[in-house]
Every structure is written in C-alpha cells, then in structure tokens.
C-alpha cells in the first residue's frame, strides 16, 4: 500500500492503515537524526514553506529541521513580516506561494478548517500544523509512534487524556488516532473543559482524576492554557493543579509501567508536577524526537506523490 493523499489535514479522515504507513515511513528517519551528518538528499530541490499565523517555536522548528534534514529548501513566512498585515487574504497568500513553485505548505492558523480551504484551492501539498481547536495531526502521530515504540502496540491500551479537551486540537487528534488504533480512551477534566460531544468519538468521560487514572497504561496531560484563566473555565490555577495535576501519588494509581506524556510546553507544578516531568515514566522528550521523524516521514511520502 502507498500513501495517496495530497495533504494531511487531520486524523478524523485517515484510516488506521494510512496512519500506520506514516509511522512506518518515520521509523528509518530516527536513524538519520542520530547521525553525525543529519541529512539525506531525498527532497533535494523541493521547497517547503512554513506559514505560521500563531506563535509556535517547537512545532515550527520541528518542521523546519525535518525539511532541512531531507535536503528541502525551507522558507518561513510569519504574518508580522508579510503582506498579511497589508490585508491580503489567506488564499491569496497561498496562491502566491504556489506560483513561486513551492511544493509543501505547512500551515498553522487560529481558524479551524483553514488548512482544508487551502488544500482544496491549491496544488500545494498542505500539512495542517494546528488549526484552531480542530486538529494537530503530526503531534498526535508523534505521540502514537512514541506509544507504539514503548508499548509494542496501541490496541487495548488504556489511555487517559487530562485537561482542557474542549479547546485542545492536540486532544482531538489524539482521540482520533488512539480510538482508530483500538485503544480505550478516557477524557478527564472539569465539566467546563469536557464537551459532551466527546462521547460520540468513543471516549469515556471522567471528572474525577483519581478514578480515571486507575490502571491506565498512558497518561497524556494537556497544557493548561493559563491565558484562559478568568474565562471561568476553572476558579484558580491552584485548584486546577490540586484536582487535575499529575502528581507522583496519582502516577502510583496507574499501571506500573505507565507512560507520562505531554505535548509541551510544560507548566511545571500546574498540570504536571516537577518530579513527574523528570521521572522515568515521562517520555516527553521522546515525543519531541519522534516529532521530527514523523514529519520527515510524512514529507517524504507527500513528496513522492506524483
């Protein structure tokens, strides 16, 4: 089987086989990133444009490194320095990039569906690097690869996702990825952060973290977006940390070989305790390393499409 898609917009529409194909393609690139000369010529002559309308350091850097290690040329567009501030529409910006003969466009945008609109209206291969509260597929694929490596398989694992699931594209993509791969997913958080519609995606909803964490194989903690405080989603950071922070005591309730994951950036002492971040259960930095490999594998597959 080969990867036939022009774009990667989200995981909701991807089959388990397609996800497995991307993970398989990512695997050989881990070796490349471990070399002294971290570069292969596979995408020589291709152009990758990073178009980020929201601040991001880690995701943009990860995409940039991935493209560069494949020998592609990389251009970074950011709205503050581009014609976007002069009133150009998103679509016009993309068309201009297309006619500069770029091949792959990596888009982060605050509006859900922005990547899909561009993909439909241009020849470019579009990779969604996060659109509003909708999806962040490459992050979820990196998480999936990390789980698969550490646990051998994803099927029948019990996975808890903790935090503000209502406003998290990472959580949404993770739920699609994990349920499609046969894991049992628990959504954990205060009622203000867990939309009822999540149950339609096949997850079990919990408001009591101590109950939810019992026996789980993986805990994915989401970043508490501190800037949302004052929008009455939670009374105080201290209360949130007490009820939904991942502490060493809570980790004890999970399976013995539990994996602790976090998409970053971490608020130490809020959604996850200091000692847990630095414990042997945490695979947060493996997620980062796998992120580069997944993005290399994905860009390799998209560039092969003719």
């Amino acid at each position: 089987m080969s990867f036939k898609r022009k774009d990667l917009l989200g995981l909701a529409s991807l089959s388990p086989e397609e996800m497995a194909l991307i993970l398989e393609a990512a695997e050989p690139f881990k070796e490349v990133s471990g070399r002294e000369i971290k570069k292969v010529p596979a995408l020589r002559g291709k152009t990758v444009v990073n178009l980020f309308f929201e601040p991001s350091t880690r995701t943009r850097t990860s995409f940039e490194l991935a493209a560069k290690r494949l020998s592609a040329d990389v251009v970074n567009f950011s709205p503050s320095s581009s014609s976007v501030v002069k009133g150009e529409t998103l679509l016009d910006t993309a068309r201009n990039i297309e006619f500069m003969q770029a091949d792959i466009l990596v888009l982060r945008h605050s509006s859900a569906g922005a990547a899909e609109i561009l993909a439909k209206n241009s020849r470019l291969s579009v990779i969604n690097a996060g659109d509003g509260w909708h999806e962040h597929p490459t992050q979820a694929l990196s998480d999936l690869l990390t789980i698969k490596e550490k646990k051998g398989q994803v099927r029948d694992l019990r996975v808890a996702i903790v935090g503000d699931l209502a406003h998290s594209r990472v959580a949404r993509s993770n739920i699609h990825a994990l349920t499609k791969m046969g894991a049992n997913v628990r959504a954990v958080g205060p009622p203000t952060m867990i939309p009822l519609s999540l149950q339609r995606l096949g997850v079990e909803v919990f408001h009591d973290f101590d109950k939810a964490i019992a026996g789980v194989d993986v805990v994915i903690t989401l970043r508490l977006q501190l800037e949302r405080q004052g929008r009455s989603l939670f009374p105080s950071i201290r209360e949130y940390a007490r009820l939904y922070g991942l502490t060493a005591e809570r980790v004890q309730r999970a399976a013995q070989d539990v994996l602790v994951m976090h998409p970053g950036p971490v608020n130490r002492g809020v959604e996850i305790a200091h000692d847990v971040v630095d414990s042997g259960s945490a695979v947060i930095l493996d997620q980062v390393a796998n992120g580069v490999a997944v993005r290399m594998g994905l860009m390799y597959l998209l560039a092969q499409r003719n």
Partner: protein
Amino acid sequence: MEPMPPKHHQESVIMDSHEMTRALTRIAHEILERNKGCRDVGLVGIRTGGVYLAQRLKRLIAQIEQTEVVLGELDITLYRDDLSIRKDQPVLKKTDIPFHISDIRIILVDDVLFTGRTIRAAMDGLTDLGRPAEIQLAVLIDRGHRQLPIRANYVGKNIPTAKDENIRVLLEELGEEDRVAKLINVGTAA
C-alpha cells in the same frame, strides 16, 4: 532491486546452490587476500539481497580466518536518483550500521550489478556516515549495461544479458531454493 517477474516467463538457471557457495567462498578468499586478512574491514550489505550475501560472506570469512568481521545493512532509497520521477513509492527501510566506518575498508555487497546507479547511491549513503579508508565492491552477478563508471572488485560470475532480460538472485533466506535465474519474457499479455 529487480521488479517482480511478469506471469509469462521462462526461467533458466545460470547458477545453482553449489556454484553459488563456491563463488561466495572464492570471494571471501579474495577479500582476505586483497586486504591481507580482515583487520579494519567491514561488510555492508545493500538491502535486501545484498544483506543476506554479506551475512554469508561474514560466516565464510569466520570459517577461513577464525575472525568475526563487522556487518552493517544499508538502505539506499533516500539516495536514489529517480525518487522524483518514479510513479510508485519505494518502500523505506532502515539503515543499520552499528560501527564507525571512518578509516576502515568497507566492502559493499550487492546481489546484481547492472546500471551502477544503486552502487552510486550506496556510496553517497556511506560517505554521509563517515569517511572510509576505502570502499570495495563485491557482487554475486555482474550483468553488464553500466550507465556509470563503476566496476566491482569481486565478482561471483559475469553474465552477459540483453537489456530487457531479468536476472533474479533467489536465496534461502527469502524462502527460495538458492539459485540465480535468468528470466526471459515469452509473450506477456500485450
């Protein structure tokens, strides 16, 4: 790697299992002779067929010299010169060379030497991993039709072929009886 044979073909065996073992044994001796033993020598098989042949050479060298040489596996997919023009997606596999290649003599091992493009890609792949003292090439079959200035140091057998003929090295490790076959198309459905 050669493409899968079409349905209607005639197979003629040009090397059987005994001849294959003899050819590989001779190559093992030649490698030892040329390198005055096997100090600072490493074998690198090109995926997929070359890896199995490299494993066999390692065993033969161990039998002759009572020394284990290091062995690695190289996937050349990312170094192909036809990546952007191929219609299909070549399957990516892992490169696994668990030793430093700098300053040692690397024997690249492949099953069939044809246009030379695979070897060009393999040499690019190797030099990205370090700077070997020397790169030598061992192949089981040299079928001619080179498109690049590349020549093997060790050849199991030279087999003159027509360009549209297909040479297949079939190995026990791949679930076949050891042999080298020439496949001649006889009336594939037009």
